């Protein structure tokens, strides 16, 4: 009797979580990268908190974007190299569904921790404590959309020898909407204004990502495995 979709998803999430916690260094690297990027800005712009506050949304979101692109490199490449990704495609189960489960796990391990640890960097950049809650919410939702989008580029660069720069070259232009709405939400949070409008937009992009991105990622992976 073939396994049901929920079993398949549970097994994929379980496997990736177990794999991640067996090699925790790979979990920490994107977070450390984010913190370093955040500390570079006061050194280059100004130590003066009030002026840093204006740049804070940009710093936080560009840092989040770049660290998510870094984390994407390993999303499919390890599995492709040891032949397990091939077995995903040959399992008779929907590859789209399995890659969606895999992308959500990737977000749980990279996007979410980053959103939760972002307040540390935000406070250092002069973001008022009142704004931290909505900032974390916008980063969590935005990084989810970024993970879905990045899964497509990760799949597409499987065919190329090294992902690296090509991966960001493909992902960054497509992530502009998430950046625009995310930074706007953070800016409104800092100013104490309501963040609903940009959050709805981020939500809309995330929903579009959930429906379309896994399909494109599955197509990209099947092509990459050829």
């Amino acid at each position: 009797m073939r396994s049901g979709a929920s079993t398949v998803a549970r097994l994929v999430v379980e496997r990736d979580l177990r794999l991640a916690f067996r090699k925790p260094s790979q979990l920490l690297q994107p977070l450390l990268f984010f913190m370093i990027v955040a500390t570079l800005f006061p050194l280059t712009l100004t130590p003066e908190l009030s002026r840093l506050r204006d740049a804070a949304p940009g710093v936080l979101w560009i840092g989040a974007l770049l660290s998510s692109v870094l984390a994407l490199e390993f999303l499919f490449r390890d599995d492709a190299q040891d032949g397990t990704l091939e077995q995903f495609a040959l399992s008779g189960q929907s590859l789209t569904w399995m890659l969606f489960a895999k992308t959500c796990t990737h977000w749980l391990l990279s996007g979410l921790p980053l959103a939760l640890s972002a307040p540390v960097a935000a406070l250092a950049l002069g973001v008022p404590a009142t704004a931290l809650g909505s900032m974390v919410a916008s980063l969590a939702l935005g990084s989810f959309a970024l993970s879905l989008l990045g899964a497509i580029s990760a799949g597409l660069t499987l065919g190329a020898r090294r992902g690296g720069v090509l991966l960001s070259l493909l992902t960054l232009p497509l992530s502009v909407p998430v950046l625009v709405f995310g930074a706007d939400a953070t800016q409104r949070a800092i100013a104490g204004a309501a963040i609903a409008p940009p959050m709805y937009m981020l939500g809309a992009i995330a929903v579009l990502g959930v429906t379309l991105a896994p399909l494109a990622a599955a197509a990209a992976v099947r092509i990459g495995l050829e």
Partner: protein
Amino acid sequence: MNWTWFHRLGSPPHVYGFAERWAPWFGGAAALAIVVALYGGLILAPADYQQKDAFRMVYVHAPSAWLSLMAYSTMAVAAAVGLIWRMKVAHSAAAACAPIGAWFTVAALGTGMLWGKPMWGTYWVWDPRLTSELLLLFLYIGYMGLRAAIEDPQKADKASAVFAIVGVVNVPIIKFSVNWWNSLHQEATVMRMGKPTMNGDMLWPLMLMFLGFTLYFATVVLIRLRAELLRRERSASWVREAVA
């Protein structure tokens, strides 16, 4: 419903023959339309009361921007057809569109900046249309970068097709988010490069220029299509007399 035209569309020798026969005609028509439109726009059309003669730059900027977007959507449609019906001709057409689209995005940016200088005093202003055009250029560079990074032509065709489709879905979203971003920071009263109000004498040269650019686009795509078809054709007999 016989699909003969669709099958013929899918057979490389037939498309190669079509491209070889029709490219010169499209080229001639394009050249004629562009020359007449240039004459109409530069000489016949009256100056704009506000921008005076500077407005004439619309006759090269607008068609370039139009062509850069048309090339991308044509590329995405060809890519989708190639993926869905596994047609090599469609993938070849998609590969043929990319370089032209990228070059005309550069032209649109360049002419936009040259138009911006007299209007705003600086070459580059983060005007939403110029910014969207710049992002479109990055999409082209991403597409061509992906194609170059994959050795196997068949695999490169399919991977770049997926990116073209994902890209074309994102173009309107990017445009919307850039306009949203622009409306956020509207305090600086930047004189937007408003569309000069066009009356008859000004308008027909622009329409003719659009037609000329479209015909020109078809010409260059047909030439490049022949090259892409030859590159993808392995040992088919028709290649022999095509290159004899």
